[in-house]
C-alpha cells in the first residue's frame, strides 16, 4: 500500500468511528478499535483495552439521546489522523445541551484499526454541561 493509500484507509476508519458516535452504536464504534486500544482524555488516566474502553464508550452512549460530531478538519500523516471537531451532545432530549470543541488524534495500526485515541478538550466544559464520567471507578 502506498503512503497515500494508507492515509486514505486511516482517514476512512476514523470517519467510520465518528459515524458510529452519530449512530450512538457502541458495537459499530468498538469494531473500529484494536484489542489493545489506548484511549486518553488528557489529563485523565489512559483507558486501555477493548473491555475497559467499551465500558466508557457504551456508558457515554447510554446517557446520550443524540450525538453529532461535526467534523471541521480531518487529515492524516503516516499512521496518525487528526480530527478537529465540534461534538454536539443531547443528554436530556432537549437539543444540543453541549457543543464541545475538541481535537482527537488517532493512531491506526497496520491492520487498519484505531490503536490510539487521544482527545483534547476542556474537561470542565464537558462535566459542567452534563458529560458523564470518563474514567472507570
Amino acid at each position: 500500500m502506498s503512503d497515500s493509500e494508507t492515509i486514505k484507509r486511516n482517514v476512512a476508519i476514523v470517519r467510520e468511528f465518528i459515524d458510529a458516535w452519530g449512530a450512538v452504536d457502541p458495537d459499530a464504534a468498538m469494531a473500529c478499535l484494536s484489542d489493545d486500544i489506548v484511549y486518553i482524555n488528557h489529563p485523565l488516566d489512559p483507558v486501555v483495552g477493548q473491555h475497559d474502553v467499551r465500558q466508557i464508550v457504551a456508558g457515554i452512549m447510554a446517557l446520550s439521546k443524540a450525538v453529532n460530531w461535526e467534523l471541521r478538519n480531518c487529515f492524516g500523516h503516516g499512521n496518525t489522523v487528526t480530527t478537529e471537531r465540534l461534538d454536539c451532545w443531547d443528554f436530556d432530549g432537549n437539543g444540543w445541551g453541549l457543543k464541545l470543541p475538541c481535537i482527537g488524534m488517532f493512531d491506526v495500526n497496520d491492520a487498519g484499526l484505531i490503536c490510539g485515541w487521544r482527545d483534547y478538550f476542556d474537561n470542565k466544559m464537558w462535566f459542567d454541561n452534563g458529560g458523564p464520567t470518563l474514567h472507570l471507578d
Partner: protein
Amino acid sequence: MTDNSDAKVARNEATVRAFLKGWDDLDVDACMAQCTDNMCYLNQPLEAIRGKADVRKMIASIFEPAKRAEFDLIHVFGKGNRVVTERCDKWDWDGSNTWQLKLHVCGMFELTEDGKILEWREYYDNNNWTDDGGPSLEL
C-alpha cells in the same frame, strides 16, 4: 498551488515550527513575525483574541511569569492551509529547573496563501493550565 502541494505544506509546517520555537525562547517578536496582522488566537472555550496587537499582549503576558518553556512536539503535520500540532508544553514558573506544568495540548493552525499564521486554535484542559501555575489567558 493545490491543496496537495507538498512544498506548501512543508513551508507551512516550517512557519508553525518557527512560531513554536519562539515559545521555547520566550521571544514574542519571533512568534509574532510568523503571524498576520489580523490573526486570531483561540483558547477553546475561552474568548478569541483578535489582531496582532492584542495577541502580542496576550503572549507577552504569558511569557512574563515564565522562567523557561519547552514545547515537545509529538506530531506536526499539515494539509492544504492547515497544520496540526500535538504537543506537551512544559513550563517552569518558579525557576527551580523543574517543569511544574506539563500541558497536553493540540493546536490547529490556519495559514494564509503566503505562509503566515492567520488563526491558531488551542485545545486542552483549562483547569490543568490554571491549577499548575498558568497565568490568565484573558486580556
